[in-house]
């Protein structure tokens, strides 16, 4: 290149577009087609369940006497409302219950992920950052918990908690807020809160291990030493250097975790140890339908499909995020 050409390039012409790490990740995520489709599906599901009271023609526990298992699209003679997907074995509108169930199942999954990732981040960061005996105690405890088979333990604990109301006192405001979110009475929402606690109580273990590993590698980075030489406290280093740089694997873990919690909640409900009828969840709708499934095979498919879709979608979103956030790709 000649000198004249160099001179002709103004500084403005050669400056690249300013992009934050977030924008770069978004751009890369958008290239992942399955993840984008999944994101659209999930956004649609969230919208539908959020607007449940406006979309669902019937209330959650509204019974239509003598109208068991009516066919799809039956019109209610008195009010003119339509049973889009018919009714269940005691005459409740299947479609309305499906939407409300989605609201409950998704809320439980999201809250479980938020709580478990938060605990995981805090415990993992402390364990990895401080090392020594703190690390040993925390991580041996985590490993001990992980060696116990999860499902039987979940069953025992959730049935214990659900049967004995006095065992854990959940503050009234929490129940009230939860009830408002789920459109249930505070009493009915108690089970949902308990299931969140039980799921998150075991879910944080792997998040803590993940966080610890990431922090262990970050701790040796020069920029942490640079912060230290500036006089930064441990707390500041964790908040400013560790957590932002460790978020990538945590976000991926959270999206995969959402899939896990939806299935986990469904499994508990299916086995009768989770949120139980009359409060609908995808899991207990599936459970209730199994005794009629040979005659009416669509009954289990209706709640089964959203479980399948959510689980698949969150897995693809997780994959897309993993690719987009891959630290080996240059940011």
């Amino acid at each position, binding site marked *: 290149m000649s000198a004249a050409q160099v001179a002709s390039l103004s500084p403005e012409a050669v400056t690249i577009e300013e992009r934050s790490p977030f924008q770069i990740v978004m751009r890369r995520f958008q290239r992942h087609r399955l993840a984008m489709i999944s994101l659209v599906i999930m956004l649609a599901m969230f919208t539908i369940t959020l607007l449940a009271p406006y979309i669902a023609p019937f209330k959650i526990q509204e019974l239509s006497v003598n109208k068991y298992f009516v066919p799809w699209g039956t019109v209610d003679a008195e009010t003119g409302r339509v049973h889009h997907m018919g009714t269940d074995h005691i005459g409740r509108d299947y479609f309305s219950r499906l939407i409300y169930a989605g609201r409950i199942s998704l809320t439980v999954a999201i809250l479980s992920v938020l709580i478990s990732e938060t605990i995981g981040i805090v415990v993992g960061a402390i364990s990895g950052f401080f090392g020594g005996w703190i690390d040993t105690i925390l991580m041996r405890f985590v490993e001990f918990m992980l060696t116990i088979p999860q499902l039987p333990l979940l069953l025992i604990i959730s049935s214990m908690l659900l049967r004995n109301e006095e065992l854990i006192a959940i503050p009234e405001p929490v129940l009230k807020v939860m009830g408002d979110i789920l459109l249930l009475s505070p009493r009915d929402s108690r089970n949902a809160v308990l299931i969140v606690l039980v799921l998150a109580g075991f879910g944080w273990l792997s998040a803590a291990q993940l966080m610890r590993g990431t922090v262990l590698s970050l701790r040796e980075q020069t*920029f942490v030493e640079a*912060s230290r*030489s*500036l*006089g930064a406290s441990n707390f500041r280093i964790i908040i400013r250097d560790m957590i*932002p740089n460790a978020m990538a694997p945590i976000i991926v873990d959270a999206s995969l975790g959402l899939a896990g919690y939806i299935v986990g909640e469904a499994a508990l409900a299916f086995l009768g140890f989770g949120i139980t009828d009359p409060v609908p969840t995808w899991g207990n709708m599936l459970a209730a339908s199994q005794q009629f499934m040979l005659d009416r095979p669509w009954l289990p498919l209706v709640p089964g499909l959203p479980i399948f879709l959510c689980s698949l979608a969150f897995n693809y979103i997780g994959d897309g995020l993993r690719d987009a956030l891959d630290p080996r790709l240059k*940011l």
Partner: protein
Amino acid sequence: MPMNPPNEKYDLVVVKDLVKYFPIRAGVLLRVKAHVQAVDKISFSVKEGETLGMVGESGCGKTTVGRAILRLIEPTSGSVFINGEDIVQMRAQSLKQARRNMQMIFQDPYASLNPRLPIGESVMEGLHIHGIGHPKERWDIAINMLRKVGLEDYHARRYPHEFSGGQRQRIGIARALALQPKFIVCDEPVSALDVSIQSQVLNILKDLQAEFGLTYLFIAHNMSVVEHISDRVAVMYLGKMVELAEREELFRNPLHPYTKALMSAIPIPDPTVKRERIILKGDVPSPLNPPKGCRFHPRCPVAIDICSQEEPEFKELAPGHFVACWVAERNS
């Protein structure tokens, strides 16, 4: 803050008998099995406003000295006085205050900046930690520092990944300078950079030294870089300081055989000049179990009996010229 004696350069940094052993743990119970003697009883001082170059091959403990002085790692023993205060004895709060006066520039410009912070934020970080100014003032100081190292205002909002190695190293310099320290440890600041960028960064360091009256401990393994920037030069070998002298004196009249070997390895850009190359045999011994006596004796071309028996003292053989070598001591 103590007053500077007028007209005379005083010792801003005094290092006395600095020792750093890294324990090697092994077995199920992680018992300490051995120690890596990374730095073993080093003493030297850095005068205010000067640049002390520190050279030695990989693994000789140069970086450990730099980090121990700033207490980024805890020294095993010894003391480090900066401005007359012992850094090693300091508690957390006073250490934090002391850190305002001592900063570090790191070797790897790619790893030394937080990838999630815009560089303006990185430069402001120290000001925020020490509660200097309100956010607007901090931002202005950061911008000002970035200008001083040759970056533009609009760079402040960008992230480290948008910069080249040389630019990042200059950002690292701006961050170190934002607190207006007196003393800066430069830990091989140019060895990760292209040769064409090296001189640029070195010149920035020199200009800033003149402007702010900075004192540098300049760690490097490249003799010509050290010759370019240093006022005095210290040579390290296997955790020991073997020679320390004014730059001209050291390059003209090296006394320690290891320094001589280092000098003979500097390429001369003139093919007609022939000179004797001193080629050292063997590898550097393990710092786990350093040789008895003088640590250099197994590789030394002029070693005598006493070298393998007793450790030579670090003595001032000529004014301002310190050497730890039995042979040099006998010859003087």
